[in-house]
C-alpha cells in the first residue's frame, strides 16, 4: 500500500482525527477495568466523545480527499486502512495507560490542549472546522474539568497517589512540547496556544501541590508520522477485523 500524500489542510484534519481516535482507543482499554463502576463509565463517556470528534474530522477529511484526488475514502477507510507512518496523531495519545494516574494526567494535559485548540478553531475560516470545534468544545470543557479534579485529588491525596501522579507527570511531560510545534500543513499557528495552556496546567498543579517541569527534552514526530513503538500494537488490534475481513460490517 503506497503512502498517501495529501495537500495542506487535509493532513491537519487527519492529524486532529488521529489524535482523538488513538487516545480513544487507548482509553477504551479501561472499559470494564475502571477503578470503580462510576469512573469506568466516566472514562468510557470521554472515550465516546473522542470517537465522535474523530468521526467528524475523518468524514470531513474524506470529503476533502475525494473532491481533490478522485478517491473513494470514507471515515472507515481512513481509520482502519492507513498504516503506522500515515497516522499523524500526537505521540502522547499512543502511550500506554500504565495506571489511573497516568490516564488522568494524560487526559488533563491533552484535553487542556484540545480546549485551547478548539477555542481558536471556532474562529477558523473553514466552516466545517469551525462547526466541529464549536460542537466539540463543550465535550472538551467537561473532559478538562473531570481530569483536572482527578489530578488535584491524586496529587494532593495519599502518599501513594501523589507518588503515582509525580511519576505520570515525569513520564508524560516530555510529550507535551509536540502540542505546540507547527507543521507546514497546520491550519493555524499552534505555538500561540501555549501560554493559555500552561496557565491552566500551572493553576491546577498548584492546587494539587505539584510543580510544572521546566526545561526538559521534548519528544516529537507524531505529526510527521514518526511514532513510538506503541502505535503499531494499537493499530494491529484496532484494525485487525478490517484487515482480516475487508469490508466487514455489522
Amino acid at each position, binding site marked *: 500500500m503506497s503512502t498517501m500524500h495529501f495537500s495542506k489542510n487535509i493532513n491537519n484534519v487527519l492529524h486532529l482525527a488521529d489524535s482523538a481516535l488513538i487516545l480513544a482507543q487507548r482509553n477504551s482499554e479501561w472499559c470494564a477495568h475502571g477503578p*470503580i*463502576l*462510576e*469512573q469506568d*463509565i*466516566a472514562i468510557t*463517556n470521554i472515550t465516546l466523545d473522542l470517537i465522535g470528534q474523530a468521526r467528524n474530522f475523518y468524514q470531513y477529511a474524506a470529503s476533502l480527499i475525494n473532491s481533490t484526488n478522485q478517491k473513494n475514502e470514507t471515515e472507515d477507510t481512513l481509520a482502519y486502512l492507513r498504516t503506522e507512518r500515515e497516522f499523524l496523531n500526537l505521540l502522547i495519545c499512543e502511550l500506554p495507560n500504565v495506571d489511573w494516574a497516568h490516564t488522568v494526567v494524560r487526559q488533563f494535559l491533552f484535553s487542556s490542549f484540545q480546549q485551547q485548540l478548539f477555542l481558536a478553531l471556532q474562529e477558523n475560516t473553514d466552516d466545517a472546522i469551525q462547526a466541529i470545534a464549536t460542537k466539540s468544545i463543550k465535550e472538551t470543557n467537561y473532559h478538562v*474539568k*473531570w481530569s483536572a*479534579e482527578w489530578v488535584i*485529588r491524586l496529587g494532593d491525596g495519599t502518599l501513594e497517589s501523589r507518588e503515582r501522579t509525580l511519576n505520570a507527570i515525569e513520564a508524560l511531560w516530555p510529550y507535551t512540547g509536540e502540542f505546540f510545534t507547527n507543521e507546514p500543513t497546520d491550519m493555524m499557528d499552534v505555538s500561540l496556544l501555549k501560554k493559555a495552556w500552561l496557565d491552566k496546567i500551572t493553576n491546577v498543579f498548584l492546587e494539587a501541590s505539584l510543580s510544572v517541569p521546566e526545561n526538559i527534552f521534548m519528544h516529537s514526530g507524531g505529526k510527521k508520522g514518526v511514532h513510538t513503538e506503541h502505535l503499531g500494537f494499537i493499530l494491529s488490534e484496532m484494525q485487525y477485523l478490517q484487515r482480516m475481513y475487508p469490508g466487514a460490517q455489522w
Partner: protein
Amino acid sequence: MNINIRKFYYGDIPEENNVTSLSQNSKTEKEWPLWEVFIRSKQGLDHKHAGSVHAADAQMAIENARDVYTRRQEGISIWVVESKHIHASNPEDADMFYEPASDKVYRHPTFYDLPDEIKHM
C-alpha cells in the same frame, strides 16, 4: 442475654457507634460513600430520584451522576445527597401511617360542583 439487633432501612445508614459499621470498618474504609441522585428532566419542575452512585465527595458525586444518569439527555439539573442523610419511614409503621387515610375519601376534592365553563378538570 440481651442481644440488641438494630435494623437499618433504606437510606438509614448509621454514622458510627454501632456494631455493624465497626466490624466492617476495614472494608468500608476503602469504599467511597453512597450518594442518592435526583434529576430534573427538561419537562419536569421537580427533581426525581434516579438512583445512587459511589463518590469520594459531592463534586465527584455530581459528575458521576452526570455520567451515569444523564447520558441520554435525561436531565438538566442534578441534586446529590449522601445516602446516610436520608431517613426513611419504617415499613412496620405502614398500618398506622397510611391505613387511616383509606376511608377518608372526602379529602379528595371530588365533592364540588364545577361550573360548566371550566374545562379540562
